């Protein structure tokens, strides 16, 4: 089902949706765009939030269950999972969700992930104006959504071309029918034109094989000396999904699942103190190997979606794409780090 939504009707559509379900949307804040619960804030569909949408499926910190001890017996309680509609997510983020589905869906499936995943509707916004850091085209993750979602929007100038792909998507459109106009063939042509332009605007030299090549020739120890071990690249990566489990509270408390990062020495350190990835350079190399060797083996897809967030957040002078120190430094002054 296709329809056209004039731009000025967007807040009304969100209003209508917000009455039925918690809508998470990219809003404009004083600290830049961020995905939060929408209650009328100004929407920012232009810039990509730094914290990826995947935090709503794999939270930074999640209580898997609460344990309560009474007279020597433990009882357990799972928390309610909120139903959410994730609005305005990018094709790269959607591709990351498709990857996480495959990773967490391997036997045995990760129930905590799928409880949230099942309660989530996805509304994607195709990228007609990719950011400077973006290279999704080279990794087949954008600028057009190709993975399953409920509803696809494309900004074609004075409004959005809406394409519902699932029953949920059709329900969303039907619920706000009064706001919509019929989609015209011209709309579809405009969509194709804009997305082709967006694809061409992105660097063409950042495909999976090119990054693998850069990995071959990278001086990992030199990069490791620049790295300040902040873990930021993992925390903003929509594909990074490593977590740590801990029980907090005695005798009552919670079993928590917290995000983790292979950039930390404690991640790979063994109980006796030995560490197979002793240096920061080795850990950085591992981060890339996971994305470009291990995840492809598991899922058949590269573990990077080309969103460029790691490049945006990295405080060190490391070019996260071509894995050099110097070239990042060259474009550093002109780089728009917002």
């Amino acid at each position: 089902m296709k329809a056209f939504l004039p731009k000025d009707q967007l807040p009304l559509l969100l209003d209508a949706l917000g009455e039925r379900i918690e809508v998470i949307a990219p809003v404009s804040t004083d600290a830049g765009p961020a995905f939060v619960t929408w209650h009328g804030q100004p929407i920012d569909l232009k810039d990509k939030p730094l914290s990826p949408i995947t935090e709503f499926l794999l939270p930074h910190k999640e209580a898997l269950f609460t344990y309560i001890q009474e007279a020597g017996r433990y009882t357990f309680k799972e928390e309610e999972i909120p139903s959410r509609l994730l609005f305005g997510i990018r094709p790269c983020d959607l591709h990351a969700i498709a990857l996480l589905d495959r990773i967490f869906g391997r036997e045995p499936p990760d129930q905590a992930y799928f409880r949230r995943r099942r309660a989530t509707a996805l509304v994607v916004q195709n990228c007609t104006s990719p950011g400077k850091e973006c290279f999704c085209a080279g990794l087949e993750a954008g600028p057009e959504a190709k993975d399953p979602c409920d509803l696809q929007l494309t900004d074609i100038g004075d409004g959005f071309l809406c394409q519902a792909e699932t029953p949920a998507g059709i329900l969303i459109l039907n619920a706000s029918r009064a706001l919509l106009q019929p989609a015209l063939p011209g709309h579809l042509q405009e969509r194709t034109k804009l997305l082709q332009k967006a694809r061409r605007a992105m660097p063409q030299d950042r495909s999976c094989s090119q990054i693998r090549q850069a990995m071959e020739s990278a001086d990992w120890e030199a990069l490791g000396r620049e790295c300040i071990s902040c873990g930021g690249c993992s925390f903003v990566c929509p594909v990074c999904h490593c977590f740590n489990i801990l029980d907090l509270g005695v005798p009552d408390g919670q079993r928590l699942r917290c995000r983790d990062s292979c950039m930390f020495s404690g991640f790979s350190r063994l109980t006796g103190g030995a560490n197979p990835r002793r240096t920061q350079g080795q850990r950085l190399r591992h981060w890339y190997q996971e994305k470009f060797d291990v995840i492809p083996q598991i899922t058949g897809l590269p573990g990077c979606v080309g969103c460029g967030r790691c490049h945006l957040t990295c405080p060190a002078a490391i070019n996260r794409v071509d894995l050099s120190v110097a070239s990042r430094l060259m474009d550093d002054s002109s780089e728009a780090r917002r």
Partner: protein
Amino acid sequence: MEKVISTCIYCGCGCGLLLHVDGGRIVGASPSLTHPMSRGSLCIKGWLAADFVGHPDRLRSPLIRQGDLLIKSTWDEALALTAASLRSIQKEFGPQALGILTSAKGTNEENYLLMKMARVALGTNNVDHVARLCHAPTVAALGFALGSGAMTGSISSLQSSDAILVVGSNTTEQHPLVASYILRARSRGAKLIVVDPRKTRLAELADLWLSPRQGTDVAWINCLLNIIVKQDLADMQFIKERTYGFVETLHTASAYTAEKAEEISGIPAADLVKAASIFGLAGRGAIVYAMGVTQHFRGTDIVQALANLALVTGNVGRVGTGVYPLRGHQNVQGACDMGALPNVLSGYQQVSSPQVRAKFAEAWGGQLPCEPGLTALEMLWAAESGSLKGLIIVGENPVLSYPHTSRVQKALNELEFLAVCDIFPTETTALADVVLPAACFAEKNGTFTSTERRVQRIRKAVDPPGEARAEMEWICDLTRRLGAIAEYSSPGDVMDEIASLTPIYGGISYERLGPEGLQWPCPTKDHPGTGILHASSFPHGRARLRPVLYLDPPETPDADYPFMLTTGRSMYHFHTGTMTRRTSLLDREVPTPFVEINPEDARLMDIRDGTKVRVETRRGSVSVEARLAEGVSKGDLFLPFHFSEAPANALTAQCLDPVSKIAELKVSAARLKKEAP
């Protein structure tokens, strides 16, 4: 899910971040993309800044001591007891028997209200905080030399420097975002000189690494100044037009030839000449320093020596130049600005000035004491000797963080009354008569002032746990119980009063504090704030050069104690670990205390990575695991002070800098023994 814009709680960088709130709980944090410091980046502690907030160990209700136990009570009981105890001490022994240690972790508003309470309600200037143990020498020396004891530029200005001299700062680990600006400058072609006895991560990336013997800084800094002037690299016009005291300073410095400085500091003379020419030739030179400079028994002299160097080379008041003290706590700058110091009121207005006292007395309604009070360590010594009887400690853990642990414990035990306010139980709350549960940074509104003088907001994201309250509430309540006036509707209201009494904060109000905050001095409501100080003149007209002489450190290695022990922080922990040891990923990085030793020394003693060793000084001993570290020079030991199971400060010397009263924390003679496995 809501995202609340706030400011990081850890180091003085003052990075902007978003707190992610879901279901009434904080589930994460991420950097602000627009903040001038963080710009989309954070360090590991910043990314995990909110992890401790909902920890089950949080203090949830006021506690009152009954015998050996701390018993749950109510706010009314706890504050009534506190007020009654303080009043009875005040009546019997006078106001000088009371004191307050405020918190560099607290907000500006809290520090202001606490120093107000000390002065008008308790009637004493005995108010101080942990700056005494970090940048008191900076406040004293830069205050004297430049007229303002704060960072002279903005951190982002570092990326425009041509040469950066980093002294006694493990910047990559302790102020990671500052390091990112330094590395940015280096990538532009700036020269980087790192001076540190340890080969830090930044030293590995430096153009020149100088490794002086601990405590010999005055010698090599004087030497650089001497060489720079001799080689005609000094900025004579700047010296002539904008400074006093050049002739005397040069006269003293000229005794420090490269050969003499090499003899004292161990830095090869050739390296000193090289460093002098790099710094002297740079069009824009910046000096960055931290605890390795200040935590010495002549800390004030070392800071003055650095200021001399900056002034003689004309490196003050322009982009890319300046003196950059890196402050350790996110609001240690603000706590100083607010007058949580024994000799000044807010904005560094002297308590000894009758006009200043009259101004505050009129605003506050009451009399102000005129004699400067005791500094932090002096208060503890007064407690030990019995002349200080009652103490309030807010958000500090002196049992671990102050030098000479056993003496601190003894002093606190001698007190008639001790109230401690904190967010977690600590080694210090364990000694208290009354414990007050505080709200942490994510549970209240207020402002912090970062190391670059940037005043910025923190915002309430969640409710405090249990009965815990924002400190402002109980401080005002207690102030009223003690008979003074404290009526404020909000932290913003307090800031308005601060602005009305504090010229450097004069134009600051909550309405004006946007995502970038405002850098003081900001004297009027339409003033944009000041990024770079001293651009055309110094507050007292001209800057003051002052000759400084090298003195041997109070302890040097000898036959009994052959090692030189220095203390400091790990990248993954903060201070006494109250917060970071409750952050699972940080605790996992460094779960146990350790001492770093040079591999060659270790080999001679048959010590391997992980060997249990005992580190002893004349004051005490701790048992820790050895860690072999190439970066530690032969004969040196490095011990972090985060760990209550191996308190580094059981070992530290307590000899004080005569000017700033900072303790000698970086140099202790020590010995090492292998422990039975």
